[in-house]
């Protein structure tokens, strides 16, 4: 199987390329024109094609002899409009190019950000509601862009009869990516841990990549939407402690009950903050919930459908994230 991987040099992309290669597939990596791929250290077998989804007019040749598109490219920084242009319009260009080729299979990296966290109670799973309508625009730019990316990918797939798999990872973590928005609010060396016993929807980047590679090759994944988490997830207090030790950042943790913090945010938003959506995420209730709401998570569907078990346990994930680099 030959896979075209967008965002191949990104945090998740590098692990997905490695997982695809490890599972015996051929990889064509789409990277931006100015990317220095030599630093990544890919084996010579990885085909490199260059293009920027924001501007490339001729993306169709990248699909030559490609069996599956693994679409990971998305902006994670920048303003709302820049993220939308990069993530959504970029996907539009990519899929428009794909429509003129023989490739009919896509695996899309969506996100937990598409869920309507305000409406979910108990367990978040693939049947949980996603944010839609004008409510979406109260969310942050990343959530808006990822929701639209999934929306238009589904439309393209339906229109062209493509085989689509949507994977929605929770918080992807790994080396140099240990700190997560869900950990609360950091002010200097003080970490306000909102809901210290809350579980985190974690997936280590190598576990996550393993599922992407398997889903790309397994016909049972066609037409499916799967959440990607390694399990019920570590609790915030413990995870943050490992981060502080592992990263050497240190600092102090101050626990704050979720209900107290969320109640204060809701009250302030409705009164003194006048429902202003320009505020930082931590002060907007629906964004606050998307970062820190205490829910339960499961990878049951991926287990049942593909027989998937995360290959790395939590201890190994910690070692790969904070331990000495391999070969050093």
């Amino acid at each position: 199987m030959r896979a075209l991987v967008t965002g191949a040099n990104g945090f998740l992309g590098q692990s997905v390329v490695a997982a695809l290669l490890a599972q015996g597939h051929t990889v064509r990596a789409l990277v931006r024109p100015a990317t220095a791929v030599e630093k990544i250290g890919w084996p010579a077998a990885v085909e490199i094609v260059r293009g920027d989804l924001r501007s490339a007019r001729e993306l169709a040749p990248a699909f030559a002899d490609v069996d599956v598109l693994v679409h990971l490219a998305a902006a994670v920084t920048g303003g709302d409009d820049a993220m939308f242009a990069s993530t959504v319009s970029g996907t539009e260009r990519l899929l428009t190019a794909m429509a003129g080729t023989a490739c009919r299979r896509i695996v899309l990296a969506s996100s937990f950000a598409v869920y309507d966290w305000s409406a979910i109670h108990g367990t978040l799973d693939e049947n949980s509601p996603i944010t839609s309508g004008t409510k979406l625009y109260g969310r942050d730019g990343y959530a808006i862009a990822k929701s639209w990316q999934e929306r238009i990918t589904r439309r393209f797939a339906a229109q062209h009869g493509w085989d689509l798999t949507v994977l929605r990872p929770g918080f992807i973590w790994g080396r140099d990516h240990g700190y997560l928005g869900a950990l609360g609010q950091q002010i200097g060396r003080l970490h306000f841990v909102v809901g210290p016993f809350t579980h985190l929807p974690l997936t280590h980047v190598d576990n996550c990549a393993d599922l992407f590679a398997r889903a790309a090759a397994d016909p049972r994944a066609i037409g499916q939407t799967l959440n990607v988490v390694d399990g019920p997830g570590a609790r915030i207090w413990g995870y943050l402690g490992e981060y502080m030790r592992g990263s050497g950042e240190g600092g102090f943790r101050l626990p704050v009950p979720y209900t107290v913090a969320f109640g204060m945010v809701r009250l302030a938003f409705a009164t003194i903050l006048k429902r202003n959506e320009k505020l930082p995420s931590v002060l907007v209730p629906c964004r606050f919930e998307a970062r820190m709401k205490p829910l339960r998570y499961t990878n049951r569907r991926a287990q049942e459908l593909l027989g998937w078990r995360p290959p790395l346990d939590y201890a190994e994930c910690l070692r790969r994230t904070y331990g000495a680099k391999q070969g050093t």
Partner: protein
Amino acid sequence: MRAALIGAGQIARQHLNCLKTLPGVQIVGVCDLSPSVAESIAERFGVPAWFTDHAAMLREVKPDVVHVTTPPTSHFRLAMDALQSGAHVLVEKPATVTFAELEQLLHYAGERQLMIVEDHNYVFNHATREIAQWVDSGKLGAVVHVEVLMTLDLFGPGGFADPNARHPALALAGGALADFLPHLASLAHRFIGAHRRAHAIWTKRRPSILPYDEFHGVVEGERGTATLGFSATAQPDAFWLRVFGERAQASTNLFETRLTCERLRDGLKPLQPLKNGLEEGKAVRRAAMGTFLRKFKPGPATYDGMWHLLAGTYQALAQGTVLPVTPEDVLAVNRMVEALKPVEAAS
């Protein structure tokens, strides 16, 4: 009045935020080459129709006013199409790539009693209007000189110097910096009038795909002189407007709310710097807090000039009165811009 937008990116969102608040203005359509951009902006702002073909939009929703908020290289064709559909045009700066195109648009509009307004939003910022009022009231005395200097980092990812996706503004003579020239020129024009002579230096300090990252110009106008500058490397980001009068000197950072004034005072001369300094310190502290709190308040924030300009434009169009930015202003500002452009085409 029925308003429509062509181009639904970042600046369009600022236009729409303002239009939503204007009485008697109905947003009837938005258009963007990207269907998802057009559809999402329509959904977000409750606009009833979205298009990817501007000609279809003009034909179907028949707007009275069209906002052209696309990259500058497409302005001329889109503005002309909008005029030909019988609509007034509000176009983002720079209105056109060449001065000849602008003349053609203004000529066409003038013959049909249609208006073209270029977005000189910083002329209508609160601080600029305050300084203009000080000039009109005599507080500043006659204007001698104006200094306009923008320092703005253009090298961040996804910006003008992104080597991966060539920014459309790089097609302008002068490159990305030319995108800002109308802001500088419109402010100078507001205080010294049309230019008589101009001289500019364009240089490059840092390796990048930008043809230039530094610009400095000197202008002699009808009522005084001005220096205009842009630096992509000097930091922090700021937009300084300083107006030097015969009685006082006003200074503002248009990216913030800071506005100060040093003036001649009655009383002992040695006390003047002390009084001015204390007053300035008070104004700077107040502005620092105001700039910070502005981030937490709904409303236009740094786009307050645009909101004022749009409100004034729609009111003038509805009542048939003089526009805040007249065709003569647009022409004079762009003549100044033309005189400051680099002699050789951007490499």
